[in-house]
């Protein structure tokens, strides 16, 4: 996958500077601190998306945003399990797992345990509002996400990538779902945090939205925020979601024009 990514440097070029984590020199009151990877506070990492990563799946997508690498496969719609009650709307089944080598310490996420379940339910919540579930009654769509490398802002990347995989599978949706997170560090707000920044954060805000409809499907906030800060963070994030949505849309267009040639 990394080979593929470096073959298209126009959209994304891996910067070796971010590979090694430097100790953050962030101190309270230091107004001029620099982010570990040298980005501006409101600057997202370069994003790379590609559909059709897995041949066996109905649809799939691969996303690489900074060091975070995620692969999502969509299977179905298939008949719901017999034990399930009749439902005139479709079901969405989401599962997020991490590879044991996704974190610096092997299997770090496993002793926390709940992380996967939490991510799975958050992914479900972020997507269900965008999918037209009425279009496949009595059936189930499976969304399986695998975090190949965890480099910060994992959940937003999973959500964006999953909506792209759903589109690739031809599941009817109102709109793509783009997701961006923001960390509050002291008095500063940084968008699209890397793992290192996330471990220092005082609070986080994750927003998932449908850019063309300008609707928020999921919003989670942790830590203490004043209303003004929420306002500001939401504006910046929604703006970034809009831009991310455009990148995702162009990725889908590229994929279809490549196959029709």
């Amino acid at each position, binding site marked *: 996958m990394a080979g593929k990514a470096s073959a298209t440097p126009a959209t994304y070029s891996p910067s070796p500077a971010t590979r090694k984590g430097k100790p953050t020199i962030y101190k309270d009151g230091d107004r001029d601190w620099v982010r570990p990877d040298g980005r501006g506070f409101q600057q997202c990492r370069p994003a790379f998306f590609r559909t059709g990563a897995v041949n066996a799946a109905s649809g799939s997508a691969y996303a690489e945003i900074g060091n975070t690498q995620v692969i999502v496969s969509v299977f179905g719609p298939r008949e719901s399990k017999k034990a399930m009650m009749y439902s005139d709307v479709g079901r969405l089944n989401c599962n997020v797992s991490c590879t044991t080598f996704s974190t610096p310490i092997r299997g770090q996420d496993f002793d926390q345990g709940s992380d996967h*379940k939490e991510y799975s339910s958050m992914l479900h919540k972020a997507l269900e509002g965008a999918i037209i579930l009425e279009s496949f009654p009595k059936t189930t769509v499976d969304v399986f996400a695998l975090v190949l490398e965890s480099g910060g802002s994992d959940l937003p990347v999973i959500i964006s990538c999953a909506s792209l995989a759903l589109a690739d599978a031809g599941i009817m949706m109102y709109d793509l779902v783009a997701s961006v997170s923001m960390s509050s560090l002291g008095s500063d707000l940084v968008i699209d945090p890397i793992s290192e920044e996330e471990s220092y954060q005082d609070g*986080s805000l994750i927003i998932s939205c449908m850019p063309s409809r300008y609707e928020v499907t999921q919003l989670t906030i942790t830590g203490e925020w004043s209303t003004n800060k929420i306002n500001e963070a939401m504006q910046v994030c929604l703006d970034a979601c809009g831009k991310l949505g455009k990148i995702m849309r162009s990725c889908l267009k590229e994929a279809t024009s490549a196959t029709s040639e």
Partner: protein
Amino acid sequence: MTGLSVGEKLFIQGGIAQDLRTDGRKRLTYRPIYVETGVIPQANGSARVRLGGTDVIASVKAEIGRPSPMQPDKGKVAIYVSCSPTAAPMFEGRGDEELSAELSIALQRCLLGGKSGAGAGIDLSSLVVVEGKVCWDLYIDGLVVSSDGNLLDALGAAVKAALSNTGIPRVQVAADTTGEDQPEVDISDEEFLQFDTSNLPVIVTLTKVGRHYIVDATSEEESQMSSAVSISINRRGHTCGLSKRGGAGLDPSVILDMISVAKHVSEQLMNKLDSEISAAEAIEDDS
């Protein structure tokens, strides 16, 4: 879920649109809250909160533990919620897992603050006995005894009441704590320290039905919701956590509007809850 006829559904939706709900409340009125404290003698603190047909119990147990190496100056808090099958038959066996996990995560998000511990309702550094070696582990368990909607708000109130009811035993540390060994501690069973709960937020859930949103929805009203936003707000009016349920998308301006409404509602709820808690404590002291 509750089976409702088309007529009943329309009646609920129409009532909400006209600001007169089926039980005579306005959109932003809570059901009466009843608080009882000290309901579980074995726990360090406990409380039962009733909100109409919703009945929840929260208990706080404190145990001596070791701080995590990542945060040597902080104690640990674990929050878990379970739903009893006495509340609804569907909670039997593993049927409650999904709801329990959702409520647990929402409560953790609302009460524990960010990763660095900033904005946490519970001051974790007050739980440390010897830095890096001994701390208190707080186990906060919520139990849903009977469910009639708005579980999260009720659980949040119960945890707040249970924590203000909590006495943590005073600890004497043996003098020679310089070595690498785990220091010996002597836990007093007479002297207790009160827990500071003034920073604990309250949780306000706004449920959107049709074009309006309501607080403290009953389960019938919840079955008609398009989405719900739970916001935890502390005494300073700052948001300490927010989570959204339900699939339908919301306009960003609606969310900001909800936050400001929740802020307003939370002040009343906070005052009401505080007076209920102190009344409950007074009754407990008398008996």
